[in-house]
């Protein structure tokens, strides 16, 4: 089984049984994140902007005394930025032993579900870590490492995804 560097090696079966995921909405579409990558959902707050050169980072917000960068992933996933009132989904990114936080603007409330996951295949986009089915809808489980800046690419293109790619 291929895993990215920094990810504990566990069996394929253990990874792909029922997992807790958080459903999030971007515009009219729903996506999912592994629940252990989600810290909290917060109401919109003031965003601070300052000069920088990293594409994809809009600014930062203050949350519990911590400065958290805001990254609008909607443009990459649905083709347009979120313009309506939005919440911030504070997500955790892990690489090796380090964890940092990033705020993802989302369109509305999020939902915690249990779902069986299917690992992403070699033909899937890099931002897809896995797939799940919920309420008759097939939903992409997102790979934050491929969607947000500052994460080094990992073997198999899994980025910081907690779900390894499966070998046929």
């Amino acid at each position, binding site marked *: 089984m291929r895993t990215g560097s920094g990810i504990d090696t566990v069996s394929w079966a253990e990874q792909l049984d029922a997992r807790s995921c958080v459903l999030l909405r971007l515009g009219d579409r729903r996506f999912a994140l592994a629940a252990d990558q989600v810290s909290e959902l917060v109401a919109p707050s003031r965003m*601070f902007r*300052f*000069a*920088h*050169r*990293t594409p994809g*980072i809009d600014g*930062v917000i*203050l949350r519990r*005394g*911590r*400065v*958290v*960068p805001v*990254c609008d992933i909607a443009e990459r996933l649905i083709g347009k930025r979120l313009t309506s009132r939005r919440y911030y989904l504070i997500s955790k*990114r892990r*690489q090796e032993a*380090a964890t*940092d*936080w*990033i705020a993802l603007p989302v369109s509305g409330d999020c939902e915690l579900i249990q779902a069986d996951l299917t690992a992403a295949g070699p033909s899937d986009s890099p931002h897809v870590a896995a797939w799940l089915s919920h309420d008759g809808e097939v939903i992409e489980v997102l790979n934050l490492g491929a969607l*947000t*800046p*500052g*994460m080094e690419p990992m073997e198999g293109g899994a980025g910081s995804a907690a779900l390894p790619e499966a070998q046929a």
Partner: protein
Amino acid sequence: MRFEPVHKTPAVRTEQIILFRSSNQIFAISSASVQEVRSVDSLAGASMDIDEAGVPKVRHLLKRGERSVYVVNAALHFGLRPSPAALIFLLRKTRVGLLIDGIEKMTTMTRLQALSPAFCHEERVWYRGLTVLDQNVIPVVNPQGFLTEQELLQLDAAAGAVLEAPAACAPEVGLTP
């Protein structure tokens, strides 16, 4: 009789900073890294023009003894809209004079937060980190981050040509160190 040692609460470490404006944005810099604050007017006769295409943010240099100090336009350095500048920070231990719009105030910061790894371009050299003052997030600049070694080499080469120019150019005026 044994007395328990008294554990004193460690004093909060503070750092004096200067909040300054460039192109309507606020930045912070450690007070200790600023050697002098001069007005643009006071240095008008002491600066020489320099034109190095590879470093457009530097258009003037000052001679301080044997050293050339390059005046970096802060707005251009940060990629902001150019704005009328009134002051120059002459920075310690660098060959940089920072051209800014003005000073907001002097204050202290108690906590410097590292930039998130999500910021992964030039800003990691520009800034020491971020601080929060009165519920505002302010970037704290790195005094060493205004000119790279390569830019200094380019500027030194251009400055050599300027300083060797005939006396028809503006005369050198040595500044008090």
